[in-house]
């Protein structure tokens, strides 16, 4: 057979093809295929699921199967459901198709976030094992127990000092760097901690704060204590002195979050119209006045956004405290108390009540988000 023939399908082939299409088109074929395809898909995915949940294959193989199965499986699910829906009568297909697109996302968010809100709310009125209703006891614990009051105090410290320093420093650096030639270098250095995990940052700062003890001939290996002794002070076990140890932990958050605030605020500052700044300078305004009377009012919206994001972050702070002190020495925070109640003391009731408290704390932000979203999209 030469190439030209191969390219034009012979009438014979065409016939066969048409026949197959016809067969598929017949109702029986349609139904059979509609059952067969999802069934095969299901079996393939189920086998992958069994393989992965048993998880005793060599690690590298598992990782590869995991990636192929996870990513391919999701794509396959969409293709098959879409294909199935398209088999339906046109009107039904049109009504159902949007749900092929949004359905999985809604289902997963429902399972992992929306429904748990209700389940946690219910669990918060039940006892540790979830077997009996105990009324408001868990909330009485959450709002009056000294342990919880300590976490509220500490979270307030995180929120006030962590946020104000992160935003303040971020704003200062963004403003100053904007007028230098080495802007990119400065900003990259401040921003890079964002790539580091809280656990990694914990190690870094634990080493800064480390303390060897008092004695003759002892050289401190922690940076802070070395500086303190070089200046003639006495080295201290910084992480064990309440309430000041909270501030040493908050420093870590500032170190991590300033970069975030700086990047966002920097782009907002760059958005201030040059004419506005020039006009003020021609009128003889000092740089300080330009900063407070023009730049700050202009970027107020962004400033608020950044502050809100960091406040939420500080309310949920967990990793740093967990790694550095485990919540001991008066450094406990709400999220760590939640972790202790649910996974160390196995008290699902108290844990749920604490989670609900966290939710209540961010509720104003949720309400505000919804309101501004609805305003933005009047014609949605």
């Amino acid at each position: 057979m030469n190439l030209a023939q191969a390219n034009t399908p012979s009438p014979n082939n065409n016939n066969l093809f048409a026949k197959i299409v016809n067969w598929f088109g017949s109702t029986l074929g349609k139904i059979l295929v509609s059952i067969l395809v999802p069934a095969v898909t299901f079996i393939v995915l189920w086998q992958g699921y069994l393989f992965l949940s048993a998880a005793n294959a060599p690690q590298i193989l598992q990782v590869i199967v995991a990636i192929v199965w996870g990513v391919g499986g999701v794509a396959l699910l969409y293709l098959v459901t879409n294909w199935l829906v398209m088999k339906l009568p046109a009107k039904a297909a049109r009504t159902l198709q949007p749900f092929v697109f949004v359905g999985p996302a809604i289902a997963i968010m429902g399972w992992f976030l929306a429904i748990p809100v209700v389940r946690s709310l219910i669990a918060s009125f039940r006892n540790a094992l979830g077997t009996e209703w105990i009324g408001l006891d868990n909330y009485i614990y959450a709002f009056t127990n000294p342990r919880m009051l300590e976490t509220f105090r500490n979270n307030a410290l995180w929120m006030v000092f962590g946020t104000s320093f992160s935003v303040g420093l971020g704003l200062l650096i963004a403003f100053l760097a904007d007028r230098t030639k080495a802007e990119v270098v400065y900003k990259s250095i401040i921003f890079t901690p964002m790539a580091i995990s809280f656990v990694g940052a914990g190690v870094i700062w634990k080493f800064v704060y480390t303390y060897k003890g008092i004695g003759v001939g002892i050289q401190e290996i922690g940076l802070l204590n070395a500086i303190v002794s070089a200046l003639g002070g006495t080295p201290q076990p910084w992480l064990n002195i309440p309430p000041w140890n909270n501030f040493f932990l908050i420093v870590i958050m500032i170190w991590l979050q300033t970069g975030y605030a700086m990047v966002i605020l920097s782009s907002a500052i760059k958005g201030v119209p040059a004419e506005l700044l020039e006009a003020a300078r021609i009128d003889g305004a000092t740089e300080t006045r330009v900063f407070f009377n023009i730049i700050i009012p202009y970027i107020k919206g962004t400033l608020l956004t950044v502050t809100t994001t960091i406040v939420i972050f500080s309310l949920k702070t967990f990793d740093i405290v967990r790694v550095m002190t485990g919540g001991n020495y008066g450094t406990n925070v709400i999220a760590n108390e939640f972790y202790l109640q649910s996974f160390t003391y196995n008290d699902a009731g108290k844990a749920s009540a604490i989670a609900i408290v966290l939710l209540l704390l961010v509720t104003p932000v949720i309400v505000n988000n919804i309101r501004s979203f609805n305003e933005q999209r009047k014609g949605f």
Partner: protein
Amino acid sequence: MAKGQKTTKRTQSFWTNFVLILICVIWMVPVIGILITSFLPSEDIFKTGWWTVFPHKEDIEIDRVVLPEDVDVNGPITYGGKTAMFEEWQRGIELDDGTKATWYGNKRTRTLVISKNQWVGFTTKLTLENYKDVLTGKTITYKDAQGNTITRVGNDLSGAFLNSLAVSIPGTIIPILIAAFAAFGFAWLEFPGRNIFFTIIVALLVVPLQIALVPILQDYVSLGLNGTFLGIWLAHTGFGLPLATYLLFNYISTLPRELLESAYIDGASNLTIFTNLILPLSVPALASFAIFQFLWLWNDYLVALVFLGEKNQTVTIAVARLVGEKGQDWHLMTAAAFVSMILPLIVFLALQRYFVRGLMAGSVKG
């Protein structure tokens, strides 16, 4: 006047740079500290601070002098032409010949350490031993339930590194796929409940994930998903979807309407439009979120701790365990911390521009 202005400008610029350099140094020193420490021999780390690898002046012991028995240690003590009380000797006294004498230990030792302040250069040997230690671990041999002998690498960081990859890569791609489909649906398709569902997604953006941990763990235990990769991907998908959907929706809904309409007129199906038009056009937004999600998964501690635990531990868990178990083994902790940081740092520095874009879009509107 003009000249005066120029000088003010120059001093201003000097102070600006000075403040910025100062802040940057403060920012970098802690990292430099553990980077240097991770290359030092373990026995050196505990002796002196890491900064002594740089040339510096140090008191070097040159001699020890034991005072005769007849010297009264409770009264004034004379040595080398100086007379002082014990407490002062303990702090160290500069002698006339430029050396320094410091009392060694308590009064009963009767010993003075004579030292000289000298320059010390780069004498420290750097080593890769610490990295070898944290990366190779030990080999464990054990028998499983069927009686097969299984040999596997112990709980070392290279295994944890692979686990982190196994968590992060699918945990990034799966939510992006699902969110892209959903964002397209919300942006371009009409269906009942569209408004309500999207409002719920906006609300879920800031819901603390703590609320979900206990109920989802219960589900996982009954489904046998606890400790599996599948379980943690699903969890990360669930927790990442609101932001992913929101970001991609914002992007996809701004694509020109005419483009899609002409495609519809050409008879393209929704799926074709999505795969051939929307996905390629959304690559910048997809990349932004991908980097965001990847870094967040790689650095995540809480979710991994709850749903994976000791089985299939990720690097963050491995490092945190090291800190908990071997709180003073700085040679291991610093090397481990660096191993855990290297990949996110590369991703971050290489793709910073996309990351920043995602950050901007993701800032929860206040």
